[in-house]
């Protein structure tokens, strides 16, 4: 067996490698269409195709596709309504887009050999910055300077504010960072784990085939673990999209009602 090939195969970072599909640049900036862009495009196309098809149905008694899409609609609408109130519904299309963008990216990432768009910090970071920009921009546009009451919750005795305000400011600044890192780290670590267990199982079973029977037993255990991890990662893929969306709603709620 080729030694070098074997070693690239067990490199769990390889799956995050960005490679150019189409060389593009604008004003000297490299904006090449990469595998990352390709899978992002796939997610967006699938999302538009699914919801576009479902929305074109308009049946009084929905079929399976329409029903699924409407469950998604109701799910996001309830999430927005319960965390940000009725006024929060003006952000419903944004939260819906965000949730399903991340959801489709995560789910496509679960397919072997697919690229996980959300495993790149630049993507999750950009989404988090978008969210927090909207929160700040809308918060100031709607509430003016009273938006900054967010950092000084009412009802505390005045000396407390010397501690409270810095804590609130830091926690606010930490929001985009944690929002971006949570999704990025979950997808990255999850996919590394999947890759490690899969290659581990394959190598051990390979060793068992060349005589080391005990290795086969461990290999089968590792394979079972890989299956369990796949199930877990599927859960994480859905859950992290949900967490991203619901935290967006929570932050938008602050922009809508800063004094709360």
């Amino acid at each position, binding site marked *: 067996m080729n030694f070098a090939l074997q*070693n*690239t195969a*067990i*490199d*769990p*970072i390889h799956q*995050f*490698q*960005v490679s150019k599909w189409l060389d*593009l640049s*604008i004003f000297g*900036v*490299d*904006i*090449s*269409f*990469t595998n*990352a*862009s390709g899978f*992002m*495009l796939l997610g*967006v196309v699938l*999302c*538009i195709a699914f*919801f*576009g098809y*479902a*929305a*074109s*149905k*308009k*049946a*009084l008694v929905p079929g399976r596709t*329409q029903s699924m*899409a*409407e469950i998604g*609609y*109701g799910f996001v609408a309830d999430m927005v309504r319960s965390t940000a109130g009725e006024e929060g519904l003006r952000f*419903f*299309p*944004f939260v*819906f*887009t965000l949730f*399903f*963008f991340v959801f489709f990216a995560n789910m496509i990432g679960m397919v072997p050999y697919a690229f996980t768009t959300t*495993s*790149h*910090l*630049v*993507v999750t970071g*950009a*989404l988090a910055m*978008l969210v927090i920009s909207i929160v700040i921009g809308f918060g100031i546009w709607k509430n003016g300077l009273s938006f900054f009451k967010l950092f000084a919750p009412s009802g505390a005795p005045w000396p407390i504010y010397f501690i409270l305000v810095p804590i609130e400011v830091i926690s606010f600044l930490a929001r985009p960072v944690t929002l971006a890192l949570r999704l*990025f780290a979950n997808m*990255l670590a999850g996919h*590394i784990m999947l890759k490690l267990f899969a290659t581990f199982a394959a190598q051990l079973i390979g060793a068992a085939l060349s005589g080391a029977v005990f290795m086969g037993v461990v290999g089968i255990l590792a394979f079972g673990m890989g299956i369990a991890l796949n199930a877990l990662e599927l859960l994480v893929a859905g859950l992290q999209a949900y967490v991203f969306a619901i935290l967006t709603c929570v932050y938008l709620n602050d922009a809508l009602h800063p004094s709360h």
Partner: protein
Amino acid sequence: MLLALLAETAHHLPDDAPPPFPPFEAWHMPGQLFWLAILFATLYFSLSRFILPKMSDTIEKRSDRIASDLDQAAKLNEQATEAQQALELRIAQAKAKARETANKAAAKIDAEMTAETARVDAEIEKKLDAAEERISALRATAMQNVEQIAVDAADAMTARFGLKASAADLKKAVSTALN
């Protein structure tokens, strides 16, 4: 942990290059941001302009339809209740009428029966009287016959004793003994 992992994987890669960690490589970041912006905006606009309004329209129409159907059902239910009440009223009326008719018939029959009973009673009484009259007549006749027999027997007895009593005396003695 990530760094440890990097160090772990480092020696698998060619020795001359430092290990690149793809998510932290800079060269693809502008491209990623560019395509993210375009694709996210595309998704946002197609969802918010075309798809979501259509879906909310469908959902709203359905809930309107359900509400109107429920209204109609309530209306029909009310009508049914009314019809049932009317029916119950008519049944009650019919029952009352039937009861009245039955009572009337019963009263009529009662009256007829009392009249008939009275008539029959009177007839029986009459017959009884006649019968009693006849019985007492018969008894009187019988008593007369007995008296005659007693007179004859007394005549015969006195004759055996060699005596002779007049018929009038005999008759008087017999009737004294009998009464």
